[in-house]
């Protein structure tokens, strides 16, 4: 369950930012998590809630936006969104494709007091 290490990294970043911006309490945290990332949102929420206890971010809500998987064909340049895990260009059927989005594991912003 790597969600625990991801939750820990997330908490570290929030505590750093909290000190920089003199935040007393974090109410919610906006995240972007790609559809291709192996993070299970429910299990990330669970882990985060656990380790956030006793910190400025205790009880904060994780708002997780999922980012769809998109690719660009390296042969014909077509950009397409990946469905049913088919990393194949819909125009020319090439399999030489570059992943543009879907692997995100980013923090975006904090709602804070």
């Amino acid at each position: 369950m790597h969600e625990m290490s991801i939750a820990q990294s997330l908490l570290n970043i929030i505590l750093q930012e909290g000190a920089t911006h003199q935040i007393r309490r974090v109410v919610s945290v906006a995240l972007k998590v790609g559809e291709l990332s192996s993070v299970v949102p429910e299990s990330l929420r669970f882990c985060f809630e656990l380790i956030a206890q006793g910190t400025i971010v205790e009880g904060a809500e994780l708002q997780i936006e999922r980012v769809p998987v998109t690719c660009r064909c390296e042969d014909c340049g077509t950009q397409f969104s990946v469905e049913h895990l088919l990393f194949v260009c819909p125009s020319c059927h090439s399999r030489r494709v570059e992943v543009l989005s879907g692997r995100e594991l980013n923090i975006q912003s904090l709602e804070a007091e």
Partner: protein
Amino acid sequence: MRTVPVVRNILEANQRLAEENRKVFRDAGLFVINLMSGPGAGKTSLLERTIDGLRGQVRIGVIEGDIQSTYDADRISQKGAQVVQLNTGGACHLDGNMIKSALEPLDLERLDLLVVENVGNLVCPAEFNLGEDMKVMILSVAEGDDKPLKYPLMFQTSAVLLINKVDLLPYVDCDVKVMRERALQLNGDLTIFEVSCRTGQGLEAWFQWLREQVAMRKAKGDGAKA
């Protein structure tokens, strides 16, 4: 109440450590593989075979990642290779920091190839870079040809897929053609080898691929693709 924009990668700390490791590997002229699979697919068996097969040609070092025990490191040590055992004490994957801490006892100048045997798991290891040149994964025919559909990230991020235990094909319901096709739909750039660490079938092609990668790393110095 106010909104504080904080656009950062959650795994940036690991990413930094992986880059530090990568620099150490490049300076030593090492080719580095992050070897991943589910438990029991044959990572340690492949390493034993590879150390024997490349003896006198490629100097191989191994970092063994396991939740517990030194069993795999002992197997590698018996083959005469430099080896470090990492015990994650429960963690389901290795990260950049663990690799950094494992490097000290290794004499990198006397190695050509470093293989990190990751914790047996088809999900988590794919998310954490270690500073490797390439991710290499093993899927054994006993695990079934549906696995690419269930663990897309690992197939998507690996450069090489070894389909192991082909000696068992007569006994299992696994269609290698289907397995290959499903893997290639996720990642058309995958280099695929069909092997048996039991009979040795197909291993020479893998050894040859490794010889070439190591030679390219030496030729390019630190300019090779990450």
